[in-house]
């Protein structure tokens, strides 16, 4: 199992332990790909009505709705809830390919999970 997948699974467990937040995002269904910059590891997360229904490692065929690319250290910091994705995004250390609204929702989700 890759480090990225482990971190993603841990993140999903924390998220699913917050049913109100999952319910808040019940109208959210999409496929998000997380990529380590420079052709490193990648995983895809499939979300259906706010719940994560699959983690693909490596990502399967088919276009992701949102692709998030960053250095391993940045992605792992975000998945460990030590940083919101918006911070590295603002400073060009995390790149997003996809609709801004989807990224804003992802940032909302992570920020809601981050300890104050």
């Amino acid at each position, binding site marked *: 199992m890759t480090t990225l997948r482990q971190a993603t699974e841990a993140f999903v467990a924390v998220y699913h332990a917050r049913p109100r937040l999952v319910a*808040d*995002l019940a109208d959210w269904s999409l496929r998000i790909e997380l990529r380590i910059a420079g052709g490193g590891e990648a995983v895809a997360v499939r979300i259906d009505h706010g719940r994560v229904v699959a983690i693909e490692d490596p990502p399967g065929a088919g276009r992701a709705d949102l692709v998030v690319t960053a250095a391993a250290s940045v992605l792992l910091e975000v998945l460990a809830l030590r940083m*919101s994705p*918006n*911070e590295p*995004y*603002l*400073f*060009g*250390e995390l*790149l*997003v*390919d*996809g*609709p*801004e*609204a989807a*990224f*804003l*929702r992802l*940032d*909302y989700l992570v*920020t809601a999970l981050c300890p*104050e």
Partner: protein
Amino acid sequence: MSGVSGEASDGAPPGWALLSCSSGTAVASVCIFGVFDLQALVGGVWSVAAVVMAGLLCQLLARRVARLYAVCPSGAGLIAQISRALGRSAALIAVLPYLLLTLCLVGAESALCGLVLAQVLPIPAPLGSLLFLGATWALCRRGVRLGQVAQAVCTGALFIGLIGLATALMIDTASRGLLLARLSAPTPSFAALAAATGQALFLFMGFELVTFQAGGRAPQRVGAVLGLSVALLTGFYAAVALGIACLPVAFERGVLAAPQMLLAGHGGGKVAMVAIGAVSLLASYTSFNGALLALSRLAAALSAQGLLPRALARVEPRSQVPRRALDALLVVSVAATAIVLTSGAILPPILAAAAAAAAMYAAAALARERPPFREDHRGRARRGLGMVFAGGLVVLGIGAVLDAPSLRDLIAAVSLLALAYAGALALARRAARRRSHG
């Protein structure tokens, strides 16, 4: 070029939508005022020369911004790219003053919108300003954004309307044999022309925000749109400058007035005034809406990092809008509008914004000459020229401020700049301390 007219199969907005966003964000009532002020500064055809020179500089800049976006395709814009090349602190110091002074420009913009509304509706100008601010803020707070088609229609109507009026004025002036007399003006000093060019840079402010709209996609199309947008804006402002030069009025710097209504009044009468009033309000709305959304998101992101009060970071889950940050921005905008309306000092925010824009564009030009944006094969001479270009932008920005028409305007513009840079410096230091503490 094919990317500009082609279908957007890559998920990014099509070329025409990006073009209308880029040029529509740059054009607002305060820009038309800026063209009017150029007429008072250098006069006649020289104001057109200042616009064209600023346009040429922005064309060079557009190529650099396109390179930055191709290497770092971030929807966050220049702050992301400057940060990659020069570091986070430098990016904050380069970009934050520009954004903070945008809020001061919003004060000038809503004051002008109040004047426009007062000319077409039986209401006083301050009430018109408040109505404009309140309505734009309320729509923004609900997450309402103008659609691509609506934005393109607004921008197109404003461009066609004002260029049409300017052309009508020129034809009328020519038919009376006065065109040469109106366009000819004493040759300005080199310093005055440079100051006018520096001030004209502010007319293009916002053209680079197309990278927000593209959302990290379609770098080739974005590159083409950046160049096209600058060319379009240069043509538009040059036409408006020619039209304004033909107006039979005395030009005085820094007087609070809505020149697009003056143009409409002379070029087409009451119907034209109502039509131009409506499209210029829509253009102001799109500019203010874009500024509010971008600034509120930045304020929320900085708050989430603990650099601003954490309460501003809260995002409303349904609309995905940081409502508290928007509320704070409304308070600042109302205060800026009140200052402009009570003091009548509309020029200081324009001059300060011109200088901050020039400095940020200079930082972007510098970033282009550093890794990861500099190509390995880029020679010393081209890098040197890039540095000279960046330095030239800074000098032009400073020149625009120093050429303020009165000591009061000069002190006010310098104070605004000092406040904006002090604020940015404080935030950059705080961010650096926070990072060094892990």
